């Protein structure tokens, strides 16, 4: 059968992910040390896994409320209050989703009409632009730069705002740069959102993983912002629960209600076993989370130090578990550098341009891999640079 014309133009128009291209290069090679992952290297803490098993043993295998278990929403409310200093009503302002990925899709579909513009900063997580397009929106990319440690500049944002702009998407700490936002710049951005009546979708998935001693500030907690912000968070990164696929959205009731409309038909509810695990994570997971964060912190410092020692310019990102070194002085493109590094030394790191054109000339190296492997990877990279 000829499938040309059978796939919707919207879907056909979305290019293949650069990550997927690179994945195919890496797959099938033996003994690759991978700095190419986007997830923690720890198995989920045992007490959390055990809570999931217990919930299965007890026969908790049914649907939950569309919004998610009330007990979990109450616990999320407590946690979000403590950590982000914003209060949401568990009955109407919290929606439990299948990862933040689903929540991004729901938020965009709930907010935008065809042709509406959505501003996002790049380099960014690979799903943002495709999700905007799948919601028939127009993505407007505001590049961030190495000289600003990849933080978003308010003046750059303002220049991108048009009468069609409806939404601003934020993700700090950022995948792939590890960037964090300075408080004063975030306040300027909040002021612009109020001035131009924008809704903000803030993806806070890495917000616990900060190493810069600053308390994490969410835009949702700034004056006048709660009413126009959808705060997205989840369990994947801080509690090492990627495979559980569990996230949540917090927002004023009318926005949650709109997202719920889509969620109830597309997903019905998040898996109950994952919700049970998430409840345990929030109630008793702090110690394990802090231990993992400490471990990332050490590994970040080591990776940044080694890269700079070998002559690659790499700043110490404030968060997440990625470093984003500048490989432009080698004269190689991101793709060429990553491909040659893989072929010569069996080290996989993702070309920066997979996260948008602002990432060209950079490499995303995930340091959430064992310290021993990280050391070998750095030695191999040093040897590779010497061979150029």
């Amino acid at each position, binding site marked *: 059968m000829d499938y040309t014309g059978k796939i919707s133009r919207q879907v056909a128009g979305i290019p293949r992910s650069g*990550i997927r291209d690179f994945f195919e290069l*890496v*797959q099938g090679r033996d003994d690759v040390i991978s700095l190419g*992952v*986007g997830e923690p290297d720890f*198995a989920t803490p045992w007490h959390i896994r055990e809570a999931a098993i217990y919930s299965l043993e007890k026969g908790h295998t049914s649907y939950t409320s569309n919004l998610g278990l009330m007990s979990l929403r109450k616990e999320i409310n407590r946690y979000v209050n403590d950590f982000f200093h914003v209060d949401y009503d568990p009955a109407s302002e919290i929606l439990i989703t299948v990862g933040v990925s689903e929540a991004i899709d729901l938020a965009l579909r709930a907010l935008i009409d065809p042709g509406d513009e959505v501003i996002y900063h790049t380099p960014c997580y*690979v799903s943002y632009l495709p999700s905007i397009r799948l919601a028939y929106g127009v993505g407007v990319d505001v590049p961030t730069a190495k000289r600003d440690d990849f933080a978003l500049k308010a003046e750059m944002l303002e220049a991108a705002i048009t009468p069609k702009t409806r939404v601003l998407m934020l993700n700090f700490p950022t995948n792939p740069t590890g960037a964090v936002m300075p408080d004063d710049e975030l306040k300027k951005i909040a002021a612009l959102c109020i001035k131009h009546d924008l809704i903000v979708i803030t993806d806070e998935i890495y917000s616990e993983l900060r190493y810069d001693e600053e308390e994490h500030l969410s835009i949702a907690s700034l004056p006048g912002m709660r009413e126009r912000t959808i705060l997205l968070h989840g369990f994947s990164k801080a509690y090492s629960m990627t495979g559980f696929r569990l996230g949540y959205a917090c927002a004023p009731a009318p926005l949650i209600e709109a997202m719920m409309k889509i969620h109830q038909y597309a997903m019905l509810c998040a898996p109950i076993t994952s919700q049970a695990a998430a409840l345990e994570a929030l109630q008793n997971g702090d110690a394990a989370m802090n231990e993992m964060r400490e471990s990332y912190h050490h590994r970040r410092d080591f990776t940044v130090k080694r890269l700079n020692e070998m002559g690659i310019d790499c700043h110490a990102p404030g968060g997440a578990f990625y470093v984003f070194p500048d490989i432009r002085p080698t004269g190689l493109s991101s793709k060429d550098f990553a491909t040659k590094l893989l072929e010569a030394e069996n080290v996989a790191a*993702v070309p920066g341009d997979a996260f948008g054109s602002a990432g060209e000339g950079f490499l995303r190296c995930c340091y959430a891999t064992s310290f021993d492997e990280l050391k070998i990877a750095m030695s191999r990279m040093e040897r590779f640079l010497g061979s150029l």
Partner: protein
Amino acid sequence: MKDPLLTLLQSKARYSDAELAETLNLSADEVATRIDAWEKDGTILGYQAVVDDDKAGEAGVTAFIEVTVTPERGGGFDRLAMRIARFDQVVSCYLASGGYDLLVVVSGKDLREVASFVSQKLSTLEGVISTATHFRLKAYKENGFIFETEELEGRLPVSP
């Protein structure tokens, strides 16, 4: 708060000073100085490998012995506990709350050797009132190490 270097040493005792320093972003000299001080003041008592005896092919036996004793005026349990602890056959010795006083872990090459230690040495000590011996059948976890390796099965080499 416990020094992160001590925590690291408990799982990576074989790391060189340079490797320990690298992991914790310290200088190798700083690492050496701290370890030296801990060894001198007894914070670090020693270093040992945690071995799976079944795999090592050692057919020894281990017993957990609950010992009830008469505490002494002045010294409490300490003098007798230390007297027991000094036997080479005793691997660990703890004062415990609950139905008995001392929990003594004893190892020997066979059942007879352990039994003989208990009947000849332990129970005959002045002040020991009773003993209850439990032989170890199988180990699942030792000093924080689980006897089964976990793997992050199926972690993709590249993911977004």
